[in-house]
């Protein structure tokens, strides 16, 4: 039910209802969001400030640019699963 429907359903002479309380985003969600912002921001910082580091190849395998890019995609999924498990009771 939206605001207008809520309003239409309210009895006329009674005082107006208080504004609907906004749902609060969970502390866990905000914490995980900050973790991802740090990862994403850190990666962008490397791209801009130290691109030479992205060419490094730990253990002779893929370069750091590929590891970081694939890692960011994996991290998004991992954090999403943590969030889902952490909030499954709500």
């Amino acid at each position, binding site marked *: 039910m939206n605001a207008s429907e809520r309003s239409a359903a309210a009895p006329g002479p009674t005082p107006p209802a208080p504004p609907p309380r906004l749902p609060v985003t969970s502390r866990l969600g905000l914490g995980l969001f900050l973790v991802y912002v740090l990862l*994403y921001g850190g990666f962008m910082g490397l791209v801009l400030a130290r691109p030479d580091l992205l060419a490094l190849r730990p253990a002779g395998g893929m370069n750091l640019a590929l590891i970081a890019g694939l890692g960011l995609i994996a991290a998004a999924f991992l954090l999403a699963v943590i969030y889902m498990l952490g909030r499954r009771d709500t």
Partner: protein
Amino acid sequence: MLHDSSPLAVAIFLAFVGGVIGLSFWLGRTKQSAQAYYAAHGQIHWFVNGIAFAGDYLSAASFLGICGMIAFSGYDGFLYSIGFLAGWVVALFVIAEPIKALGTFTLADALDARFGSRALKTAVAASTLVVSVFYLIPQMVGAGSLITPLLGLPHTAGVLLVGVAVTLIVVTAGMVSTTWVQFIKGSLLVVFCGVLTAMILGRGLVENTGSLAPQVRTVRSDGTVLVDGQPQSRGHDLRPVGTLLRLPERYAGRTATGPLGPFEYLTVLEDSTVVTWKATKTSDADGTHTTYTPRERPGSELLLPGGYFQGLATGRLTDRLDFVSLMLALFCGTASLPHILIRYYTVKDGAAARKSTVVGIAAIGVFYVLTLFLGLGALTSGALDPTDTNMAAPLLAKSFSTTLFALISAIAFTTVLGTVSGLIMAGSGAVAHDLVANVCGVDMTDHEKVRCGKLAAVGLGVVAMALGILFRDFNVSFLVGWAFNIAASANLPALVMLLFWPRTTAPGIVAAVTVGMAASLGWILLSADTFEKVYGLSRDLAPMPFSQPGLVTIPLGFAVLVAVSLATAPQATLPPHHDR
């Protein structure tokens, strides 16, 4: 290059279109309520909704554009993938559950939940329409551009085919049919990209040392095309490109690696030597000449940033700011796109919204990893068309078999259906529910609300077709970026501050949405990219220091909201409909 269309691709595509339209009519066979039309009764299963998120979000730009960018410019195409996926983190952790709890059918419902302001609904409905139209244009033009090489039909036919099919899908069963079309499309896209990636890894890397002589394509003033000075024909055309020149030393004496694992594929490619082709345009009295010149490069260079975003290599401050601004817009834009946000109203509660977002992140994340392999597979396939980066994925498929080409071509074309139907649904809700019912105050029965929504969908379908034909020759590749910038600048400050700052007022939101939308749009229209690609003027004449506005206009939206909210603080405590 001249491409042979595939009758099998036409048949598969028509079968798909016929199938989804038939499904839509079947789903819409009973009388619908407004709740069913706009929000699928809120009863879509979270898994179906999650895959439908992928079907809604993964447009032709994601599939063909990113594959092409990786195939021609290397790693920088993958940066787009990273940015597009990162936006879903904002959606899940910050926006998903509150938006589900606050709204009913549209973004305006959610932002207006506390206020009951007509001005707010008008501003948000306008923002929804602007963002949706900016997103619609490249989809429709893309449909027209793809249909000729893929299905052998003229541009207008592609636009009309998509426009009519999508309009039918939306008006038959609204959000229910739109959801199922997006679910089918999302599933097909991920599955067949997975199949193609498995084939790439199975083939491994193969040396293909074709001719590396430069090629020249001339377009004369009368429209005729020459290749290396001779008229273009099927017997005399540009050579396909995409060369793996040398495998690493450990493969000495061999011309193919054989099957490779995914990480091994990337490592071997880094150690290989590849050839990319640089296009240089010149004009004279004979016409416009594009010279394609080969350049031998180590694979390791292509797998680093800087191939497309050349400012990363040159170090110019404005180029770097442009890059940061784009990545910020991609990060903030996803959670502000109205056609994505309305999908949260199709599930039953916040938990389902959360779970469906996780499924969406999984499907979209897998898809973007697959596009890395598709792009790199195309880069070394020897099958690329140097004139058309968008054809990279279909031509890669053709290097395996014509049947796969037909399948990938048909799927590429159907990607447009899923995205456009979501955009038309978002626009239909903004017109019928926000503007007609809530702003203009037209009193409608439930049945009339559905009819109004369907009429709006037909109108938007016609507008989409007209724009697709009108903007036919327009360089639209960056319009999706515009849509992300406008959405992030106009909608994100309002969404975030409404949730986290209790002093947010209706006038504050109206001002933030209006200023964010106008500032980002104005910045784009005065940017160097627009001067060069749209107006055909010199980049140096553009007054804006860089082309992507988000770095300035997203903070501007927040600042305007705070300033106006502080100046109008008492408004926040008034009951709903106080300004009517």
